[in-house]
């Protein structure tokens, strides 16, 4: 079973102090597909994503029960090297967050952390990452200018490239297109199609339309609970649970 699924989430519950954000989540994520985690606001989607790369560890007073397995390894095992984990599972946030450095330094930031230092190696890494994120052509002549000068869409693709430079296996994308114009959104969605050939992608979509456009499988989250999950066409056209149907048809939002 474990080599069929990239990520297995088993009986996972998560608490911020006394508030329960996720209730007993159970599902599997197949490799090299786009799995979309959708639902109304405050349903625990971001918490779920941040639990997968243990970014939730940064917050004080959090608790969890259950387990999350990456390729059969329990990511909450104390022996796990957090740095390694976060390189295998990369994250792109909902607001473009370029670091206050040059484009080159932004991309090189991750690899440099692990000691990759030689100049020519770094040049290769940066170019490869920017090409994968479909940003190379636009910035190849100004790699050493500040990343803050890029447009919103370019910045977000920079964030994707930044993650790709570490050659992860999984990509967590939390509303990567929020705040972007339709053209930038389309180009990022196109990038995602290219990326899923090599990466397992978990996407919190900006809206349901994006989810149905882009994803292979979908999971509907409501108030911290996974209501149902399955192939995208099934969830959106023939949902099994009434709550899913109500949300997908727009009866609540």
């Amino acid at each position, binding site marked *: 079973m474990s080599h069929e699924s990239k990520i297995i989430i088993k009986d996972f519950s998560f608490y911020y102090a006394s508030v329960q954000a996720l209730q007993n989540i159970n599902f599997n994520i197949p490799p090299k597909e786009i799995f979309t985690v959708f639902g109304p606001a405050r349903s625990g989607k971001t918490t779920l994503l941040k639990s997968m*790369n243990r970014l939730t560890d940064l917050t004080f007073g959090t608790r969890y029960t259950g387990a999350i397995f990456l390729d059969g390894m329990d990511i909450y095992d104390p022996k796990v090297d957090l*740095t390694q984990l*976060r*390189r295998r599972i990369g994250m792109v*946030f909902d607001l473009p967050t370029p*670091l*206050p450095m040059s484009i080159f330094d932004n991309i090189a930031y991750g690899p440099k952390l692990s000691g990759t230092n030689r100049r020519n190696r770094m040049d290769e890494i940066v170019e490869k990452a920017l090409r994968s994120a479909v940003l190379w052509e636009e910035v190849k002549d100004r790699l050493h200018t500040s990343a803050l000068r890029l447009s919103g869409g370019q910045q977000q693709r920079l964030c994707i490239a*930044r993650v790709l430079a570490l050659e992860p296996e999984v990509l967590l994308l939390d509303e990567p297109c929020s705040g972007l114009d339709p053209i930038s959104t389309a180009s990022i969605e196109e990038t995602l199609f290219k990326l899923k050939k090599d990466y397992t992608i978990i996407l919190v979509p900006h809206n349901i339309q994006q989810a149905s456009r882009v994803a292979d499988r979908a999971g509907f989250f409501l108030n911290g609970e996974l209501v149902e999950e399955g192939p995208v066409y099934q969830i959106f056209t023939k949902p099994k649970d009434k709550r899913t149907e109500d949300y997908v048809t727009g009866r609540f939002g």
Partner: protein
Amino acid sequence: MIINRTRYLTQGVAKILIWLGALLTIGVMLLILFQILKEGLPVLHLHFFLESPKEMGREGGILSTIVGTAVLTVVAIVVGAPLGVGTAIFLREYTRESKMSRMIRFGTDCLAGVPSIIFGLFGFVFFVIKLNMGWSILSGGLTVAAMILPTIISTAEESIKAIPYSYREVSHSLGGTKWQTVTRVVLPGALPGIFTGILLSVGRSIGETAAVILTAGSSLVMPTSLFSPVRTMSVHFYILAREGISMEMAYGTGAALILFVLIINVMAQWLINRYIRHRT
């Protein structure tokens, strides 16, 4: 109608008095600066800065005091800045608000209120006597380091606080450890603010007299090592004035003192403006 007029009369009088007060404040300050600069600037020839005091300060220049002040200040910064910045990093990056952090802040606030003469007594007992450093640049510098610590801690904390949380999140999500995040993202961004705090501390160190006179001594001889006793500019100024040795030299030293402090403070203000504008 009469009642109305009284209200506005009161307001008018109050506003006039307030304007007078504000103008008086600035006026007196300018008066003080002007007086000393007027008498002192003529004394500031090049040789004033390049010669050491002769005849107990009646003649010559203030070179040994400038050197003494500079080295003492460097010692104070070299010791005080890492301690202060380290404290700020710990408070902002490694703990949250707790009994311990409140205690540390309370200690820092109290330290900020300790008068310089008490620091002088402390430095004398601890550095000069108990640690056997004698009256020296080292004793003076370490004492001043303790005095500037609160300033550096609070400016460093403010600067670190201003770095957006998202930068830290990004660094962690790319596999960065806390320390890597601090050194590669937080500190570089906070550097202008930290530097401003250091600059302000330099100004304070230059003007500090009570603590220095009890720990660094008052020797006019050019210092040769960190253990040499030394007379800083402000101490020299004080001695010249109080002993009435030479009014001319006193004015000159005072003018030099004011100029150094002014330049440093203007630089710090300029940095603050540039830094704040840069942030927004």
